[in-house]
């Protein structure tokens, strides 16, 4: 543990010169068990993967710009969409949200660290090595090319003879174990490490949603791990779990994968809801409208999300009864999601809304996520799903959920908490450019996909003929993807310049209400000099408004 005690309290001085100093900085980061440094490691790593996944998407969009294009062949294209999906789900959205939780949860609950600091570091390194292992496949003969949900028996040795699928399985297994450990750590931290006075009903909503997020992970990940192990046995040792030529079941894989895969969607959405539940009140200058119902809706979403997985499988020929059950459960999940949306709007209503960049992204989230939710209702209607399932309509739909939803919220989070983590503000002018271009580029890319899908364009095709009438919509999407590229370039430029010359943030630049703003920016390794004692959900509001504290109203 000696190395840990030597860990630097602050984020390192990037401008520092000497080689010995650089080595010390690297050693600090590699050996750290501080939740804040691990949170930053997660965030930086996932931003790198975001660039890689984004470039993969842009390459696909270039290939689809014109019909019968020869820019990228079928094999490379199949690798691109497999790696794009795998990267964005497993190496960007989920770990970035876990990284945020790592950084924020102990601060928000007034704790000095996570419950298991070394397990925490272990989780990060497993995630990183899982990602590197998956990407190593590019050097080892070719990346996985079976799609991110890797339907059996296409993944069996008979149809996937090189090692790319093995790399995919192993990468998923390794990073999956890391994610599981991280989830257990989060649950334990939230349940046992809250500061005096912070009952479970008084935690910030981000913490509440991370609690259920982590519980979902603990329930949903083991089936995936089991399925991956079974597939590995099939491929390596001649087992027949999914080998249909020997009596195995192709549908078993689909059930196991989606039993993980659909809760996974909410694993990527709940933290985003948590971020929005922090950002919207602070920038509207109002307490969250209906804390209890937002919290209850989270529980309902978590519960329902475990009973909707087969809505990914309406086309496999299930019975009418199963179709009805999974359709009903999927429609039902719109209700708690709607409750949250209405509560956020009611929070804005009557406020004094300050449109700093985090709030721009938060309102963008509300507007875009609504669209994804409503197309989700269309997809939950089984016969409509029979038509548009596995088409670009679905691609458009889930990008409105995961990009318009989760990623917009993550951008809000980065602009909101960057000052806390680095001590400097991100530039507002660049932030507004980033937001506007991202909003335009996003809609230009993904809205036309709905139309292409309804005009019959299946997903995952590397080319199409001009006769199909899809060219126009694909070209719009490609232009949009390039605009998104520019938006992200501005975002990374903003980080680069703001780290050097950004305005000094101070402890509480947004005049916010949760505990992380009660300590320095960046916080010391021990977070708080004294463990705070709280009496309400907005301890800093109580401090700033002693005449009208929250506990009078809760």
């Amino acid at each position, binding site marked *: 543990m000696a190395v840990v005690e030597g860990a630097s309290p602050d984020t390192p001085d990037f401008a520092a010169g000497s080689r010995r100093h650089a080595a010390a900085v690297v050693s600090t980061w590699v050996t750290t068990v501080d939740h804040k440094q691990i949170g930053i490691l997660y965030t930086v790593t996932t931003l790198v993967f975001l660039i890689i996944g984004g470039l993969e998407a842009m390459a696909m969009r270039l290939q689809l710009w014109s019909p019968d294009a020869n820019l990228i062949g*079928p*094999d490379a294209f*199949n690798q691109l969409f497999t790696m794009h999906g795998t990267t964005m789900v497993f190496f960007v959205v989920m770990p970035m949200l876990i990284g945020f939780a790592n950084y924020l949860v102990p601060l928000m609950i007034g704790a000095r660290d996570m419950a298991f600091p070394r397990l925490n570091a272990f989780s990060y390194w497993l995630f990183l090595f899982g990602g590197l292992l998956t990407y190593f496949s590019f050097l080892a003969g070719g990346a996985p090319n079976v*799609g991110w949900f890797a*339907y059996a*028996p*296409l993944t069996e040795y008979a*149809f996937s003879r090189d090692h790319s699928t093995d790399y995919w399985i192993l990468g998923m297994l390794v990073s999956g174990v890391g994610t599981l450990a991280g989830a257990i750590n989060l649950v334990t931290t939230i349940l046992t490490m809250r500061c005096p006075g912070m009952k479970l009903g008084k935690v910030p909503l981000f913490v509440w949603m991370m609690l259920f997020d982590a519980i979902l992970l603990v329930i949903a990940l083991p089936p995936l791990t089991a399925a991956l192990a079974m597939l590995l046995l099939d491929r390596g040792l001649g087992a027949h779990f999914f080998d*249909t*030529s020997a*009596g195995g*079941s*192709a549908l078993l894989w689909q059930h196991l994968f989606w039993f993980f895969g659909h809760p996974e969607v909410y694993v990527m959405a709940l933290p985003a809801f948590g971020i929005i539940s922090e950002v919207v009140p602070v920038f*509207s*200058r109002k*307490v969250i*409208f209906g804390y209890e*119902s937002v919290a209850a809706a989270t529980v309902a979403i978590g519960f329902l999300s475990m009973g909707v997985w087969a809505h990914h499988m309406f*086309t*496999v*020929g299930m019975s*009418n009864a199963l179709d*009805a059950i999974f*359709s009903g459960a999927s*429609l039902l999940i719109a*209700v708690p999601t*709607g409750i949250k*949306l209405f509560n956020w*709007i009611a929070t*804005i*209503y*009557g406020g*004094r*809304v300050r*449109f700093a960049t985090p709030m721009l992204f938060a309102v963008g989230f509300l*507007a875009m996520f*609504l669209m994804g939710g*409503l197309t989700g*209702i*269309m997809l939950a*209607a*089984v*016969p409509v*799903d*029979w*038509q548009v*399932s*596995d088409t670009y309509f679905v691609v458009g739909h889930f990008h409105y959920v995961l990009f318009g939803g989760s990623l917009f919220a993550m951008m809000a989070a980065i602009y909101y908490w960057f000052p806390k983590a680095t001590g400097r503000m991100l530039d507002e002018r660049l932030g507004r450019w980033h937001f506007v271009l991202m909003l335009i580029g996003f809609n230009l890319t993904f809205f036309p996909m709905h*139309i292409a899908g*309804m*005009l*019959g364009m*299946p*997903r995952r095709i*590397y080319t199409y*003929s001009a*006769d*199909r*009438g899809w060219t126009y919509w694909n070209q719009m999407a490609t232009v949009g993807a390039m605009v998104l590229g520019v938006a992200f370039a501005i975002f990374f430029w903003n980080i680069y310049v703001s780290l050097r010359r950004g305005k000094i943030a101070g402890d509480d630049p947004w005049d916010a209400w949760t505990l992380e703003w009660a300590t320095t920016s960046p916080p010391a390794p021990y977070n708080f000099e004294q463990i705070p004692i709280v009496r309400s959900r907005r301890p800093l509001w109580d401090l700033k408004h002693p005449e009208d504290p929250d506990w009078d109203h*809760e």
Partner: protein
Amino acid sequence: MRTAVGAVAVICAICGHAAAEENLSIFSPESPPANSVRDLFYLIFAITGVIFVLVEGLILYSAIRYRRKPADASAEPAQIYGSAPLEMAWTVAPLLIVFVLFLVVVRSVVEAREDPTHANRLEVKVIGHQWWWAYEYKGADGSTVVTANELHVPCDEPGDPTPVALTLESADVVHSFWVPRLAGKTDLIPGKSNRMWFATDKPATYYGQCAEFCGMQHANMKLLVISEPRAEFNAWLENEQQVAVEDATVAAGRERFLALACVNCHTIRGASSRGAVGPDLTHLAARQTLAAGAAPLTREKLIAWIEDPDSIKPGSLMPNMHLSRKDCELLADYLESLK
């Protein structure tokens, strides 16, 4: 102006009048299952459309109306902690909408699944392969007629279309049969037998393609459904039932075909070629396309395909046999005779 053009284009596309030669729009259905999905979609689109406009309006209104003005820089607005009646309202109203939708969905699922009981219905077995389709018909005498890649179906008098019932199976990985103007998609899953049906009274060619990712050439696993008057369909089926024609003028090509590895994969009934890996070629020349729609069936494309399949469909499971140009031409002569 640009937005106006865009809006018109969107509306045209949505109405199914997009000027594409091969129409695959779910909004131009020509068969009862596709009709009912279109109607259901319009209903849900209307409901979600109203919700979309109202809620987006509410978001924009709240954000703009309550943006901070310079006058109220320092003061905090009134803190509203919640409202039980309001929150009850936006819980119960969506619940009711969802419940109605659920009932509508259940009814349309049950209706769509009912196997058609029409006396004249046509039964066809569809077997998905990487990356082509095999079709098995029952001939007039009860024998099995095997063909590939082009599904011919009869259409009788308008108003009383003949249902076509498909049994869907797969020889390798998961595929999905999707011709949007006829019906929603159903997967072909190895080890499982699925059913779907459609019925059309409009003679036309309907396009589609495999809708479940199935490997390298998923993009070129296209579907062609040719709906034709009953008499033409019967003539086609009777022809498909015959063994291959023996044309003396292409004897050299026939001899090459039987001497080369072609016979290991392809069946040509009546020519002692019984391979079962690739498509049945007994009446290849009666088809419009090559390699499951990857190219039109012309002599030039046929020769190119035999010479180097990857030039037309990279990754295709048909190997490059490294044949001489002369052999390719002889084989093309023979295959073109297989009407």
